[in-house]
């Protein structure tokens, strides 16, 4: 099974995703995601937002999962994680439930997105294969990858959706 397509052919414009600087708060990011990516007629996937530094370098991405994790009560110490695994899971979850919706969560929403973003560690080149993009996505646990020209200039993003589409279509042939 041969496949000749490159990242360049399946990548999408970076402007399909909202851009924010790292100093924006989680709350501002939420508003932006809701306004730009979620709507009655459209819902982009993945629900990700790109985070840039003051020199317009891509720093990382924030997904709705990262936001939920950021709003989580910080009492999830290793000790509590152990509790989750044990019999006291109901107790721990009760605490979790109580704190996820209280004032503490509102306070956490004022944190800068730099605290919750996932740094952009992996990237692909426009000339890379789809398989390489798939490898990076699976092993970096991300559904969106920046495409850098010469490893420097951001020219687009690859979404898991298109990678899946290519690989699955080839399989069915």
């Amino acid at each position: 099974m041969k496949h000749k397509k490159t990242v360049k052919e399946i990548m999408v414009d970076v402007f399909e995703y909202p851009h924010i600087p790292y100093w924006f708060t989680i709350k501002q990011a939420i508003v932006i995601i809701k306004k730009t990516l979620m709507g009655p007629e459209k819902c982009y996937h993945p629900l990700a937002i790109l985070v840039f530094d003051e020199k317009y370098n891509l720093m990382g991405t924030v997904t709705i999962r990262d936001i939920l994790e950021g709003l989580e009560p910080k009492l999830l110490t290793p000790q509590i994680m152990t509790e989750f695994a044990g019999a006291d899971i109901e107790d721990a979850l009760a605490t979790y439930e109580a704190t996820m919706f209280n004032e503490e969560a509102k306070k956490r929403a004022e944190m800068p997105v730099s605290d919750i973003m996932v740094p952009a560690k992996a990237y692909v080149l426009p000339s890379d294969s789809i398989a390489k993009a798939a490898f990076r996505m699976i092993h970096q646990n991300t559904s969106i990858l920046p495409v850098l020209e010469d490893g420097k200039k951001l020219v687009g993003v690859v979404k898991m959706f298109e990678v899946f589409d290519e690989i699955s279509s080839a399989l069915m042939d």
Partner: protein
Amino acid sequence: MEELIRREHSQKLYIQLVEILKNKIQSGEWPIGSQIPTEEELCKIYQVSRSTVRTAVLELAKQGLLKRQQGKGTFICKKVISTGLTLLTSFKELMFEEGIAFSTKLLARTMMMPTDDLDILLNIPEDRHVIYLKRLRSIDNDPVLVKETFIPYHICPHLLDLDVERNSILELLESKCGIRITRAKSYIELTHVTKEEGSLLNLPEGAAALLFTQQSYSGNTLVKYTRTVKRSDRFRFFIEVERKPE
């Protein structure tokens, strides 16, 4: 000939002295940055009491014309006469006119989505990308203003690569994007600096400063929104109004 205080005049002595000293500053007889005579010398020259001199000097300091430096003396302030209300002059041109050395430091140039009311201020849909610039301007290495500029990305994408430290945005928009700003709405109000603004402008957090916001148009299209925090001791605004001929 030295202008003197007229005792027969009904005006208070210190007010007369204020006017005399103001004339010296505005005529350039006392150049910007120079030191004025000491209180004692002024007492002698104008034949008035020390308290009159002190009151007059304080009044001029309050108006921003003089700056008192402990242990050093009193100096003529460098004031930038801003014609910012007539937008067609950019800061750079203004500085050339005034012959004041200034520098611009680019603190940030990146992309963002309109947050808070920015979409309304720029009159764009909320999913449009916006170029964000933050620059610090200094006069003689003394920071005087922090300027944040917001321009819809589609208006001038080149702005991400152009030299915005040495060129004014107004010039760049015109020369590189063919956009000529023809009109602007400006608002001036009092603000209190945030911790971050304060550290940039050498002011304590919460200190009073001037907030200058401006929406610039090219024809009927809104192309730019700026938010400038200016040190209140370094600027004064000049407005000239003329009555329409009947």
